[in-house]
């Protein structure tokens, strides 16, 4: 056991030496945990901000102007004005996400109780803004109508008042969510790519053959790759969490970063083992690259990081329980957003470790056969 650990340590140090001399990989790691976290977190907003809107005001009444004046920043850009005949052309040219068409005699019809219609045209290709914006416009228009009608004929206040409290992200800022999930995504992607590519590179160069004729076991060779890549990613992700997420993006972290690092280390075992396993299934770097991306995309999209797990079909929810990413996303959200401790998420952590062990054993079974098969 002592020799196994000593050799795994030495092989890991060799990995670190190699990584230290590989400027392209170093750049990739730095990029993945700086701009690749900051950029999407800051830029890819899920909430309604600066949406482009135009009004077709065929009524030119007090009420129609009130509605137009209620479209304010930061939700909407100052509204543009269109004639009714220009609507289709403007939307085809992608000039506006929303076009509100207020018909002639609108105010008069409202006051007469004839329930006139306002048409809201939405460019649904802007998916997240379209959904949120349509709901927001409905709320703005309803509120303006209510206020206008109350002035005309005051009515009793509503019987129920809804009080909404958003826990863990009070202002529903997508940056808060994106920043942390981006780190989780990049941890997964880098762990698969770095560990698998390390094995593929050694296979293609022939250096792995040299290791296999030494008094080393595949377990030692694999553990060397696992710990070295895990170490680099855990350290860099912790630095990124502090400097990029907390300092640069101003996202408050509710939980313990050391606890998150500990959980990341266990997750790393799982995902680097997966990377090595995928490398044993392929015979060249391009094959590995394609397979790794296809696996990563599915693990990422269905992990609960992008959309809630509960909204997926039940069968898919069950299938995704065998992905370590699903459990790690739950662990990350529990620690970093909710500030919970180990007691709240140990079942997920145990699942990550168990899945990792399965991947590790599967990779181990294929290791020597896969390596020599390439070269005979």
């Amino acid at each position, binding site marked *: 056991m002592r020799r196994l650990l000593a050799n795994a340590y030495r092989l890991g140090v060799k990995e670190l*030496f190699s990584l230290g001399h590989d400027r392209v990989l170093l750049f990739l790691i730095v990029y993945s945990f700086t701009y690749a976290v900051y950029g999407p977190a800051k830029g890819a907003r899920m909430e309604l901000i600066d949406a482009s809107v135009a009004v077709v005001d065929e009524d030119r009444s007090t009420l129609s102007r009130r509605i137009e004046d209620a479209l304010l920043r930061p939700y909407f850009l100052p509204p543009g004005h269109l004639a009714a005949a220009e609507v289709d052309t403007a939307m085809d040219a992608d000039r506006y996400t929303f076009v509100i068409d207020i018909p002639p005699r609108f105010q008069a019809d409202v006051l007469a109780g004839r329930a006139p219609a306002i048409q809201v045209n939405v460019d649904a290709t802007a998916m997240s803004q379209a959904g949120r914006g349509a709901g927001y416009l409905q709320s703005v228009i309803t509120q303006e109508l209510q206020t206008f009608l109350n002035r005309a004929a005051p009515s009793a206040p509503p019987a129920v008042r809804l009080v909404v409290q958003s826990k863990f992200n009070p202002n529903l800022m997508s940056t808060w969510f994106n920043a942390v999930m981006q780190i989780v995504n990049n941890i997964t992607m880098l762990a698969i790519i770095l560990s698998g590519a390390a094995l593929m590179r050694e296979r293609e*160069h022939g250096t792995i053959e*040299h290791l296999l*004729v*030494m008094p080393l076991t595949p377990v030692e060779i694999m553990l060397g790759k696992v710990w070295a890549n895990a170490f680099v990613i855990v350290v860099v992700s912790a630095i990124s969490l502090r400097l990029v997420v907390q300092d640069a993006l101003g996202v408050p972290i509710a939980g313990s970063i050391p606890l998150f690092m500990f959980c990341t280390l266990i997750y790393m075992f799982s995902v680097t083992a997966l990377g090595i396993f995928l490398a044993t299934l392929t015979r060249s770097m391009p094959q590995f690259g394609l397979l790794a991306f296809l696996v990563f995309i599915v693990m990422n999209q269905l992990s609960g990081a992008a959309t809630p797990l509960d909204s997926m079909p039940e069968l898919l929810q069950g299938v995704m329980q065998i992905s370590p990413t699903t459990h790690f996303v739950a662990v990350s959200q529990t620690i970093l957003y909710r500030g919970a401790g180990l007691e709240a998420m140990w079942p997920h952590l145990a699942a990550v470790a168990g899945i990792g062990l399965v991947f590790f054993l599967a990779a181990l079974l294929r290791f020597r056969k896969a390596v020599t098969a390439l*070269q005979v």
Partner: protein
Amino acid sequence: MSGSEPDARGTPERGPRTTSEQPRAPAIETAGLTRRFGTLIAVDALDLAIPAGAIFGLLGTNGAGKTTVIKMLTTLLAPTGGSARVAGFDITRDAAEVRWHIGYVSQMLSADGELTGYENLLISAKLYGLTRSERRERIDEALRFMDIAAAADRLVSRYSGGMIRRLEIAQSMLHRPQVLFLDEPTVGLDPLARRVVWERIRLLRQNYGTTILMTTHDMEEADQLCDAVALMTLGRLVALGAPADLKLALGPEATLDDVFIHYTGGAAAERGTFQDAARARRTAHRLE
């Protein structure tokens, strides 16, 4: 050669033996050694006995099975039939022991180009469990012996092809193996670099008494270096003997090229695979 190796696993008798302790039995012995890949018989019932301290050449056409023989003897590939002993150990039952007693320089480049020459040697020495003082002594000696001491701190990716090969041989000799396997050690090297490698191989045997089994397509190399050669074709052994004897058997003017063509010419089937060609060219390209 200095005293026996330290035992990194705690048993004092482990590790390669010194020259004086080498057994009288052949350093490499195969009996009906066979390897099949599906219906293809890559190596067909090979019988060999290579005495300790010999430089032995394994020659043959592309796809003759030379590399497969080396991979079986170095425990990289399990035989599907027959048996073999290397340094006194069975390659199947005692694979771990065999690995302690052999060195291997693959046809492909095994030195890590992203490390310096010294770092490559240091990692190998550590993995063989050498103590700190042994590491220092043997790395210095290996660098001097292979004439690459001045380049020890340079990245291997900046070495010439000949220097890389010498580094790899140095790496494979750090633990003083009884048997050294060289798979086409001079492929891709220019004539000058090739001769430097030959000289070092001779010195290895002379200074350390190492048994060397090498494969080559270069008949001049086999003629210059080897005490005995075996010719293989289509996985079978077709001739065995000292180069001088094999040449003499064909006539006073015969060269080893003539011997090669005589024994393999008729059967020089187009058996080398795309992979063989790609590997050889990749190695040659990296050595340029």
